[in-house]
């Protein structure tokens, strides 16, 4: 059993970063995730593990610092909230194009523009469809508890390095700010110079020894044939993620007539909605996607074969609902898919979700 603590989601992200052997954090303050960098600065991991923490002049700079560090085979990360992530999308596109592993955390707030500092899931499309210019995808993990805020930091780095691709933890202001019991991970040592050389020496820019060719990290290729081959390689990688990395949780779906699909904070609400609905005699289950990309298409298709309808519950105007529809279409089924959500930083209540389900599917 690891160390048990009562902590805020944002604080846990910082603690998990230190413990998983992260080499560098580069960030810029923004509500509601500023505690990530504040916690790191208070913890002073440079004395403990040698991890570097730097407050950059902007999100634009911090993501490019991550680019530089990641290209040297280091475990580098940043965190921000929605408007800051928008500023980073240029850099994220370059990171994806240069095939660099890193971790980006989005503790979402409501938008568009400056929006609100209250929790939201309105950056779903931005996260799962790439976000910046060009054809690329991020590995997107959606935690639904402070425990998962802890667990997904290490997991995200593991997946990022496995695929040489940026990974994102898509949280929200509620998960960042709420306190829960958490079992912290054990300390993993940071990779040594020799380990980096051995693991990532074929691409990491650590300085060219006589024994190897120079390593070049770039997203640029002006020869269209080579660039298309690069694009195909990226797409093959995303396809492999879809085959190997899908993660989700099913709650009471076995006998369900209706499936609620929700991730992150909304999935916590919907767990209660399932209880309420079942107490009223409605057979409702919950599918909680944990990876948003790759999206759990297969299980949606399987559930569509034996249920009467889907309700996508999101803290936005209805984004994931499109991916659910696509998954059902791809599986060759025709099941109604509805959406319910709140915006502006409002978290739906369990009762609202049940009412919506009844209104849409179970009119008496």
């Amino acid at each position: 059993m690891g160390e048990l603590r009562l902590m805020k989601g944002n604080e846990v992200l910082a603690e998990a970063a230190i413990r998983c052997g992260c080499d560098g954090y580069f960030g810029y303050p923004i509500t509601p995730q500023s505690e990530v960098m504040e916690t790191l600065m208070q913890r002073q991991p440079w004395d403990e593990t040698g991890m570097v923490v730097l407050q950059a002049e902007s999100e634009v700079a911090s993501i490019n610092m991550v680019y530089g560090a990641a290209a040297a085979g280091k475990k580098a990360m940043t965190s921000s909230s929605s408007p800051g992530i928008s500023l980073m999308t240029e850099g994220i596109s370059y990171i994806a194009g240069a095939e660099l592993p890193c971790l980006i955390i989005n503790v979402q707030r409501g938008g568009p523009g400056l929006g609100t500092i209250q929790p939201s899931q309105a950056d779903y499309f931005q996260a799962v469809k790439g976000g910046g210019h060009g054809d690329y995808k991020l590995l997107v993990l959606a935690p639904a508890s402070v425990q998962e805020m802890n667990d997904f930091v290490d997991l995200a780095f593991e997946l990022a390095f496995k695929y040489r691709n940026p990974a994102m933890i898509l949280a929200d202001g509620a998960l960042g700010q709420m306190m829960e019991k958490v079992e912290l991970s054990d300390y993993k040592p940071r990779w040594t110079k020799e380990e980096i050389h051995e693991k990532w020496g074929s691409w990491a820019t650590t300085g060219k020894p006589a024994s190897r060719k120079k390593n070049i990290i770039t997203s640029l290729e002006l020869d269209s044939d080579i660039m298309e081959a690069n694009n195909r390689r990226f797409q093959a990688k995303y396809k492999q993620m879809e085959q190997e990395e899908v993660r989700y949780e099913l709650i009471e779906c076995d006998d369900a007539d209706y499936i609620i699909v929700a991730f992150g904070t909304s999935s916590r609400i919907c767990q209660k909605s399932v209880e309420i609905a079942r107490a009223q005699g409605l057979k409702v289950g919950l599918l909680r996607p944990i990876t948003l990309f790759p999206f759990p298409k297969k299980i949606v298709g399987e559930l569509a074969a034996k249920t009467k309808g889907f309700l996508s519950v999101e803290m936005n105007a209805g984004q994931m609902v499109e991916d659910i529809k696509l998954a059902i279409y791809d599986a060759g089924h025709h099941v109604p898919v509805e959406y319910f959500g709140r915006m502006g930083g409002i978290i739906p209540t369990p009762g609202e979700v049940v009412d919506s389900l009844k209104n849409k599917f179970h009119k008496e």
Partner: protein
Amino acid sequence: MDLKELIKPENLVYKKTELLNDDSMHYCPGCSHGVVHKILAELIAEMGIQEKTVGVAPVGCAVFAYKYIDIDWQEAAHGRAPAVATGLIRLMPDNFIFTYQGDGDLASIGAAEILHACNRGENILVIFINNGTYGMTGGQMAPTTLDGMVTSTTPNGRNIDLNGYPLKMTELIAQLPGTSYVTRQTVHTPGAVRKCKRSLKKAIEYVLDKKGTSFVEVVSTCNSGWKMTPVAANNWMEENMVPYYPLGDLKDSEKGEIVSEN
């Protein structure tokens, strides 16, 4: 004497450094980039620092710098090289990291990144190629374009009322306590090349001694962009660019202390 008898190692007076590969450069004949690449490659070889060097290339004509010099490279987004270099040097403090940037990259879109990297005194070398135009995209106005200078986006010449003033980036950078050695050079004559190489060497030494940021501006020509022959471009630069961007060391000091200024 037969020519073949002359070709012996003991008669060798000059050879291309091995760090510069044999790929033909994409730079236009007469462009300053090739010369700066050459002296940079020579210095990395002469100082024996190839194994610890990582270069950060810009967006602009030097975007392909990584093709020519045999060291590890990263290609940065437009203007972001100083942030990329920050990530590198913070996590690999014993490496030698440099950025190589043009005037659009460094003085326009990347103004924030260069200012803050220098202000933090990041232990990196910045090479700033200032030719007063955007060469790669076809000769548009740069922040350093001179008053009245014709470019494709200032067909009637830069108009101060409309476009503001040519930006003296290096003077600005010299004010920052994080920088240790700030200089402005050219490479348009053999003498200037030797002088520039000496400055670059000092700049690298300061970085290796962890004295903070070294900043070397090279006032350069873009004869294609300027629509001149290489020789005419050199003359034009000397007559027009150099008076506005005066040459020499702006700062040569331990971190934080300004010793001399133009």
